[in-house]
């Protein structure tokens, strides 16, 4: 790029999707299909039970009822269990649910019967009149009960263990045994959930005349949903279209697919020959979507007199809920990303992924990293406390240094590839966060606060996030004959601003004004190959794929323009949508004209296209109009497939104040320094960080899924599950580093999940610093802190 253009890569421009979303012109799944039949489900009220009988007769007279389906109505592959999406050799006992429960239910909320009716009100009326007779079975609730295994979730899964996996680099136990100092920690993280403001939703239209199916789903993986629907419904894939329209948040929960509803709704639409729609309500989302985070951890760390780790031995018990549709990605991520920016010495990690009679556990923003970060950062703080060292000093002594990059941990990451960090400057990040939060000045602030009878503490937490996992994404770029540019990529959007960020990539690569670029995502009609939106991968994967496509288009445009201008392509540049000879703006041709010339025509529809018709062109009569190896049109498709993940990093610091009387916890400051390589749009990246931090604060202080001993989720509403409002989220102070990734042409690392990862760790550290009490369980409420104070009399020494 020879000239900065407005909206180019790196510019913090306003989002192009916003005027639409701000005026009520967004299109979310429930905004489609106003005339469609609507679905309600009968869901299990029991955590664990046998289904003895389903009696629908009471519902049959409901005016407006169209159909009721139970498992016995399902046919073919619709009647088979849903797939294990990510098989793994260690997942020896993977289990998935049926689209409608067959004989047994394994969590409250599991779908038992499906009702289709004129509208949702009527469907719920009928659902309420269906009588299901259950034989309750003893439920397994909580990790301790799952581990004890006196009761089993699945009778054919011994010990409730879905998977046991060990990874080891060096002899950690021997290293710890020989270490001068050893600490042991028992840690716990409770469940939370993605909880997007829009729940799931599926709307299906079957065109019997065309023998084709169109499905709209609030999914993070429309292309894969398409494959799943085609396979389950035995349809040719090219007769199925799946579109993720505007989607009201995702945060991981909708990367899982196919959900039962994504199969059942199109199945019913075909069977009934009518449009069918299901819109998840909030309670359904709590009890039948997915949760995450719940883990117990036991850590043994051996270290030297300077606080350097010599050996680290980590045991994790991971609650995977009732089924394992997403395999064991979450505990694998915990057990690898736990290492953060540190060299652990010898490392051994073992996890059990355990069944419980609760909602399935699948990735929620961070996807196992917050738990890993909590484990490692609590360990760093414990080492510092044991040796009487500053917490930043211990961290710095254990950092991987910039000259050690790329750094191979000798482990296998969640993508099946080696855990090799590509780049990062952790000492520089630490210097920035210390400066931003005023680490070295904090003791003066503490003394001042103490003099006022106030109790304050400071904490720090560091993370490294593997982002941009493969296998690939693709992009398609086309210059239309009016000079506008259309772009498509298969992965989906749930608020990340892809219509802006990807347009910035194209504007930069092609040299066109950004307002001429339109981006479509997650629509299988527009791009057919894709993986999905997860693991902070969209900017890395689709960003680079679209850039690759745009570069091909640019090359072709320069070639065609060079012929037209009788110039050398190397002497040309594209500025503001016009190809011109460098330094000679008079010799130029608009991209719109290049697009016309790229496509030899027989028929013309306007003045512009007349130039490409067969009697208008002066092409060589002895050559074919489209040269061998060339293709008509100014368009190209590109793909990006990385050898392995690229690793972003960051550090958060927080200052908290705890009330000496009430134990209320207030975050006074929250600082973030992060490095996600090249920034496409700094404003969007900042927004991602703000949102991630809010979820981190929620997970640290407020959010937990409260199950009783019978497996009833007691807080399945927004009234009782405490998501932070504006009054609970601190102002986030940010600073950036940009260490470009050497793995991709744009140098991008992912940014989407980073903000949430250190939340529990940094708040726990700050509370511990304020109180002088070890904080080993998160989230923590004022009541819990109050009780901890009484259990730790030493804390009373502080004001």
């Amino acid at each position, binding site marked *: 790029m020879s000239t900065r253009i407005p909206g180019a890569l790196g510019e913090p421009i306003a989002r192009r999707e916003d005027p639409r979303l701000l005026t*009520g012109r967004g299109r979310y799944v429930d905004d489609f299909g106003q005339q469609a039949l609507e679905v309600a489900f009968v869901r299990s009220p029991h955590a664990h039970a046998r289904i003895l009988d389903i009696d629908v007769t009471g519902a049959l007279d409901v005016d407006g009822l169209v159909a009721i389906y139970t498992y016995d109505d399902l046919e073919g592959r619709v009647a088979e269990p849903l797939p294990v999406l990510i098989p793994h050799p260690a997942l020896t006992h993977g289990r998935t649910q049926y689209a409608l429960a067959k004989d047994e239910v394994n969590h409250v909320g599991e779908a038992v019967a499906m009702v289709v009716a004129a509208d949702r*009100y009527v469907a719920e009326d009928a659902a309420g009149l269906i009588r299901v007779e259950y034989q309750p079975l003893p439920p397994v609730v909580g990790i301790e009960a799952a581990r004890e295994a006196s009761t089993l979730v699945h009778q054919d899964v011994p010990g409730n263990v879905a998977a046991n996996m060990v990874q080891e680099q060096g002899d950690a136990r021997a290293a710890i045994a020989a270490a001068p100092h050893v600490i042991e920690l028992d840690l716990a993280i409770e469940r939370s959930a993605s909880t997007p*403001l829009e729940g799931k939703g599926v709307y299906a239209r079957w065109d019997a005349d065309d023998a084709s199916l169109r499905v709209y789903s609030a999914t993070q993986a429309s292309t894969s949903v398409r494959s799943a629907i085609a396979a389950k419904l035995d349809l040719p894939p090219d007769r199925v279209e799946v579109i993720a329209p505007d989607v009201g948040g995702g945060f991981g929960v909708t990367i899982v697919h196919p959900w039962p509803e994504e199969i059942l709704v199109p199945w019913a639409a075909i069977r009934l020959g009518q449009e069918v729609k299901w819109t998840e309500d909030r309670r359904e989302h709590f009890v039948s979507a997915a949760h995450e985070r719940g883990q117990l951890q036991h850590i043994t760390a051996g270290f030297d007199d300077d606080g350097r780790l010599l050996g680290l031995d980590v045991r994790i018990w991971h609650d995977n809920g009732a089924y394992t549709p997403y395999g064991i990605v979450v505990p694998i991520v915990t057990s690898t990303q736990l290492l953060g920016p540190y060299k652990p010495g010898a490392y051994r990690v073992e996890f059990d992924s355990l069944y419980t009679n609760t909602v399935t556990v699948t990735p929620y923003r961070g996807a196992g990293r917050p738990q890993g970060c909590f484990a490692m950062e609590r360990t760093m703080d414990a080492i510092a406390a044991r040796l009487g060292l500053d917490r930043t000093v211990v961290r710095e002594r254990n950092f991987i240094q910039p000259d050690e990059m790329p750094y191979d941990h000798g482990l296998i990451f969640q993508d099946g590839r080696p855990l090799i960090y590509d780049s990062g400057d952790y000492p520089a990040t630490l210097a920035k966060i210390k400066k931003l939060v005023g680490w070295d000045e904090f003791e003066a602030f503490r003394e001042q606060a103490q003099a006022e009878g106030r109790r304050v503490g400071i904490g720090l937490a560091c993370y490294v996030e593997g982002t941009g996992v493969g296998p690939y994404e693709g992009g398609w770029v086309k210059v239309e004959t009016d000079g506008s540019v259309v772009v498509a990529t298969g992965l989906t959007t749930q608020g990340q601003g892809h219509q802006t960020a990807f347009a910035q990539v194209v504007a930069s690569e092609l040299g066109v004004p950004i307002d001429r670029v339109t981006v479509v995502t997650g629509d299988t009609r527009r791009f057919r190959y894709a993986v999905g939106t997860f693991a902070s991968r969209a900017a890395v994967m689709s960003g680079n794929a679209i850039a690759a496509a745009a570069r091909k288009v640019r090359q072709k445009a320069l070639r065609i323009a060079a012929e037209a201008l009788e110039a050398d392509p190397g002497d040309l540049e594209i500025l503001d949508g016009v190809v011109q000879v460098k330094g000679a703006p008079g010799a130029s041709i608009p991209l719109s004209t290049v697009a016309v010339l790229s496509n030899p025509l027989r028929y013309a529809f306007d003045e512009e296209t007349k130039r490409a018709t067969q009697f208008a062109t002066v092409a060589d009569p002895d050559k074919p109009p489209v040269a061998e190896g060339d293709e008509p049109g100014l368009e190209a498709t590109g793909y990006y497939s990385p050898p392995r993940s690229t690793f972003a990093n960051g550090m958060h610091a927080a200052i908290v104040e705890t009330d000496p009387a009430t134990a209320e916890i207030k975050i006074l400051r929250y600082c973030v320094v992060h490095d996600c390589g090249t920034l496409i749009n700094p404003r969007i990246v900042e927004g991602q960080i703000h949102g991630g931090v809010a979820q981190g604060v929620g997970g640290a202080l407020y959010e937990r899924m409260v199950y009783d001993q019978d497996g009833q989720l007691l807080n399945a509403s927004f009234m009782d599950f405490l998501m932070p409002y*504006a009054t609970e989220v601190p102002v986030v102070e940010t600073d950036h580093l940009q260490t470009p990734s050497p793995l991709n042409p744009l140098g991008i690392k992912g940014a989407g999940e980073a*903000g949430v990862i250190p939340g529990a760790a940094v708040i726990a550290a700050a509370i511990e610093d304020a109180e002088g009490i070890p904080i080993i369980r998160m989230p923590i409420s004022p009541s819990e802190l109050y009780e901890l104070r009484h259990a730790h009399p030493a804390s009373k020494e502080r004001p």
Partner: protein
Amino acid sequence: MSELHTVELIVNGVPRTADVPARRLLSDFLRHDLELTGTHVGCEHGVCGACTVLVDGDPMRSCLLFAVSVNGASITTIEGCGPATGELGPVQQAFLECHGLQCGFCTPGFVTTITAYLEENPDPTEDEARHAIAGNLCRCTGYQNIVASVLRAAELKREATAAI
């Protein structure tokens, strides 16, 4: 089918009417009977605020109201918060400038809430702006840029008033 009742409302300045069952929520009435889908439903129990509309100028949760119970009222939805269809009012313009939205699902409720708030509080402090939006849930933004949007919207409104 249950008995139908005629509901007549002025929605965004336009008289609208439909025959609906007594139990039809105002949110569903707007979305599905009038096909004004800009109003979103996030929880259906009055906590998230995504469905907030202005009823005779006051912000109310349309998921907690029956359409029949506001018969005759004047309603403003997100579609009516701009000077003309598709154009941005000051609150919407502020959200655009301050990156006050990500997925956009909660946004209509924030925009209507802030629109009503600024009518009575044209010059809020940052702390007041934060409390003004403290009844609405957003899962994307962390609220920081929404607080900034409230302040910017107030500024835009003042500028517009000064220009008259």
